């Protein structure tokens, strides 16, 4: 499976301190390299590079996230600049 490059734009109530470390831990659990490009209480952008099935899995995990965070939507855009 070839590597894809995508940006996940996560929106919701993301302000808890737990969220960013949680996101990086989950990416590591999937063996995905990710870079946080934007982070505020309402939106986190993370650039990911890897097999598309693993990026799908990252989306699944992030739709849940830690208990004190509510993810409303995740948009995905292919990125050639990662």
């Amino acid at each position, binding site marked *: *499976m070839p590597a894809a490059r995508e940006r996940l734009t996560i929106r919701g109530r993301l302000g808890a301190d737990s969220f960013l470390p949680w996101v990086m831990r989950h990416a*590591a*659990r*999937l*063996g*995905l390299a990710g870079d946080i490009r934007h982070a505020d209480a309402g939106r986190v952008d993370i650039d990911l590079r*890897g*097999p598309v*099935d*693993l990026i799908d899995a990252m989306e699944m995990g992030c739709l849940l996230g830690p208990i004190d965070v509510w993810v409303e939507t995740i948009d995905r855009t292919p990125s050639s600049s990662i």
Partner: protein
Amino acid sequence: MPVEMLRDWIPVALSADLPAATVLPAHTPSGILALWRSASGKLTALADRCPHRGMRLSYGFVRGEALSCIYHGWSYGQTGQCLRIPAHPELAPPGAIKAASYAVEERNGVIWIAFEPPEAPPPSLEGFQPVRSITVNMDAGAITPNGTVRTQLAGVDVLLIVAGIGDRETIAHVMVDAAASATDRIAVSNAVEGWRRTCEQLGLKELAS
């Protein structure tokens, strides 16, 4: 046998109880592991929990050189690395997806595991042959302080290697002399049930006092 060796290595099963291409739950004082033997005979001990959705791997099946989880078929190799995710057959699972694996060694018919990287191999128990394993409802420490019991059962010299596996529960692996006859082995195998009852009755007396 030196006590230090037993502290690192835990005797979990007899080789005869784990044929090729089978998996069983190995009970230890720190919990249950999925202990399996590949089709070619290699032993692996993994944390008894599939990283997908937490199903016990000891309920899985061995096919060739891999252990598959019974729930969704995720399969694992001999270092615990995930080899295949059947729902996504085109995906090569990353090395990050794995079940923790532990040191396992087999000597003279006894299988040992170690949670920390061991400094030395497990006891060889040369001169002995295994007969069977038996669980006893008693603390290992109350049976023996040093992990072994030397006694006679049915007139035959016996070595029992014991390991605690939970609250007031112990597994004992019963060994006899390497030269013991088949008749002796059978007699010991039967007599050890009486030994267990005696232990448990003594244990109950202690509890009651």
